[in-house]
């Protein structure tokens, strides 16, 4: 199971990095989203894998997994939504002001004439 999770994290990272290196804004946002999945999973599994032992205190529980990475990742998920939103709006703003959706933010001649 550990190997599978490691593989999943690796695949998500690879996909995220490849998309983040594209020139248009939208694939970059997709890439960042994939990378945040990878990072969140990575952080989460730092508490090691455990099945059926949620960190909710009760008399019947057999044990608990590590709650700390979970708390970290929970806020990270929400924050990465904020970041995605900010980046995508930045892309829209750039589209409106320079007329293209390239990440370099340079005005190209064909857009200016369009």
């Amino acid at each position, binding site marked *: 199971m550990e190997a599978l999770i490691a593989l999943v994290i690796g695949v998500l990272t690879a996909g995220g990095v490849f998309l983040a290196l594209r020139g248009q804004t939208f694939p970059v946002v997709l890439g960042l989203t994939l990378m945040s999945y990878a990072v969140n999973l990575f952080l989460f599994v730092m508490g090691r894998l455990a099945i059926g032992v949620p960190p909710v205190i009760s008399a019947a529980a057999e044990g608990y997994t590590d709650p700390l990475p979970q708390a970290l990742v929970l*806020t990270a998920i929400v924050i990465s939504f904020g970041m995605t939103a900010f980046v995508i709006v930045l892309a829209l703003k750039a589209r409106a002001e320079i007329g293209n*959706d390239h990440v370099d933010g340079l005005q190209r001649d064909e857009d200016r004439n369009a």
Partner: protein
Amino acid sequence: MTLFFSVLTPFVGAALVALASRLGRSHSAWAAGAVTLAAIAWLAPSLHLPFGGTTLIQQYDWMPALGLNLAFRLDGLALLFAGLILGIGLLIVLYARYYLSERDSMGRFYSYLMLFMGSMLGIVLSENLIQLLVFWELTSLSSFLLISYWQHREEARHGARMALTVTGLGGFALLGGFLLLGHIVGSYELSVVLASGDLIRAHPLYLPTLLLVLLGVFTKSAQFPFHFWLPHAMAAPTPVSAYLHSATMVKAGVFLLARLFPALSGTPEWFWLVSGAGLATLLLGAYVALFKHDLKGLLAYSTISHLGLITLLFGLSTPLAAVAGVFHIINHATFKASLFMAAGIIDHEAGTRDMRRLHGLWAFMPYTATLAMVAAAAMAGVPLLNGFLSKEMFFAETVHISETLIGGWLLPALVTLAGALGVAYSLRFIHDVFFNGEPVDLPKTPHEPPRWMKVPVEILVVLCLVVGVAPAFTVAPLLAVAAADTLQTPLPEYHLALWHGINPALVMSLIALGGGALIYLMRRPLFAWHERGLGRLDARIAYNALLEWLFALARSITRLLDTGSLQRQVLFLLAAALALGIAPWLAGGTPLAGNRAGLPLDAVSLTAAGALIVATFATVWWHRQRFVALVTIGVVGLVVALAFIKFSAPDLALTQLSVEIVTIVLLLLALYFLPQHAAPEKDRARLWRDGAIALTAGAGTAALAWAVLTRPYDTIAGYYLENSVPGGGGSNVVNVILVDFRGYDTLGEITVLALAGLGIVAMLQGLQLTAPNRDAAGRPWDADAYPVIMATLTRILLPLALLVAVFILLRGHNQPGGGFIAGLITSVALIVQYLANGAQWTHQRMASDSHPLVAWGLAIAAFTGLASWLFGYPYLTSTYGHLNWPVVGEFELASAMAFDLGVFLVVVGATLMILLQLGGLHHAPPKPRQQH
């Protein structure tokens, strides 16, 4: 606290003065005068202390962990300088009232002046070196504002910038010097530093320390080769020049020489560096001053020359030379301030400062002329005036030192030459301006200035005279304490008197006076010679060339690193991260896998992982068909949520699911305005390169994750698991960590979220995007924007969804849930209303503005934290109790739940704010030209 308040008064006063200017022009002058008097009043109770031999030190903890204290010190030297700063400052306030014209803003001028006064006062009263440096930098900044006061003039802007560049550079060096001093001594307190002179001088770091400190001093006090900024600073209004270049700004440098004299002086390095720079500056300043046609230019170079004289005196390192240096600081401040003011009067009343046109003003303003002539005579060192006394001491000291040096006769000879040049330019000031024929083509007919404009000059000139005639009865006590506290040892034997008998110093004075007169008589051939040769040299050219070179260097380095392409920068960043990550792998000999026993694989997990991997590849493969990519990335998010469920993280799964929905809505909205297809990339090589980088990064993270997961670890989780119920009153440990143990972090996080929302609102403000009227495949949009079935269903679902959200919020402390998740669910429920029914319909039933939600949420969260202060606990300490409600039964209430409510509100508010702004874009009224 009195010293601190004295320093603080001008800073606070700066605002008051600016406000007072609204009442009328004179009001800000009155206010500035009152502020100066108030600063004096704060000092008044302690003024007698230095005379009794006590050094007053007032200290308050500021950042004790860093060794930074607010520490103030009043000893003789500080007293002398505080007196000069405040006393001459008061005269400048009065003078400037009449100098500034109707067009100049009084409030701005006096406000800057007060800022500068406070900064200077801070320097001289500081006990802590770092604190001194802060004020030192403040003088650079506030003098920049003062010099550039006439912002519409180019030379004012250039002069101010040059002064800031040079003194700022020096300030930076000084910081290094002070840090080294602190390192050597182990304390930044002056009392300790001054007592550790032997330790500092014997330390291997002495030379670098000395060089850095001197760099600060020389730039500030305009010593050669940094003297060139001072003449250009003359673009300032004359009251500013009179203040900055007589008693304050440039004196800060020599103040520091005097202040650190016991700590740094007495070595050959000090002697050669300080006196060398001083002598060069003395000669250069005196020489150039003679050839300046601008009245203020002459005074500027004369100031440089006198600063060189003072520096030379401190460089000589003998106690008597230091006494003479302190004495000359006082004398120079008085006569130079009055001369600048006189020059300002002449400029004001005659309309020019050009000495080739100003002649014979004696006939028009005999009174001002008399004052200026007395002050200029003091500058020349004529007997019966204060300048003579300190110059005598100076000459005597150089003779004394020369006896111990090989080729020492050169020093007295050179300073006599400088003295003669000083006499010559003073003569020129007097003879050229007030006599020497008729004025040439003046813009105005000169006349005497208003009565009160002359008063400051009169006071200073009387001081020059009184000190010059009877030094023992006037300046002697002040000089004694100031010099004693400069030396930090008992004073050497000296005698302040007009007549010491016939001695070498007197002979030198006489030679200087005679020689000066001779030089002035020979001025015509000398001028011609100067114009042909040295006059063409201008340090400003070298400065500008250096600056240009630096800019070009910076530009070329920037071009090398930053090609203007973000894409490339990301590539560099990733490549660097990979290199840093791979290097240890290659070097280390540890095996990749550890020995921790793993969980067994099962078919469901394998299938889910397979789905995730396929979906990831699909996203990458089809990223140019953007809607397809959006669907496949949704699958990825879903599987990640499933993984959270599988591995005992219900809170994360709930969060991930609801965030997934909001994110997809967000991306869909954005995609509406972005191109929906992208052309395939032509550059195959780039694709292969990026693919290789991506695969390496993926393999690296996978290996890292694998290495960690197969190793056992220690965790601090035990503490949280044990204390969650007894300490936090909740059994959902993740939620208790968020709202209680690490509540402060969460407060920061919701603040970030709120800021992201506000930032998005700000970015979208006034943004006009053309919405396409066809979809990606070229089909027109469906006319039925809000299908009836969907609209009806969502309306029915809304109360249910809200109920779930409240439930999740309330139970969050004990069961999976909480403010973040409840907030996201609520947002989704509300967003769906917008999607199904349209913004117009929804806004009729609900407030459209979600800013208040964010504000309330942050306020509640922050206030919950503050409330614990009321009970004497640290910020965000939580408490809980059990209430017994009728019917419902026992109900637990924790203060952390209020915090969670704040989190909830912020999440709802920020999410709605973001999505509604984006969704509202195409409802913005289209521009008329788009309607054709």
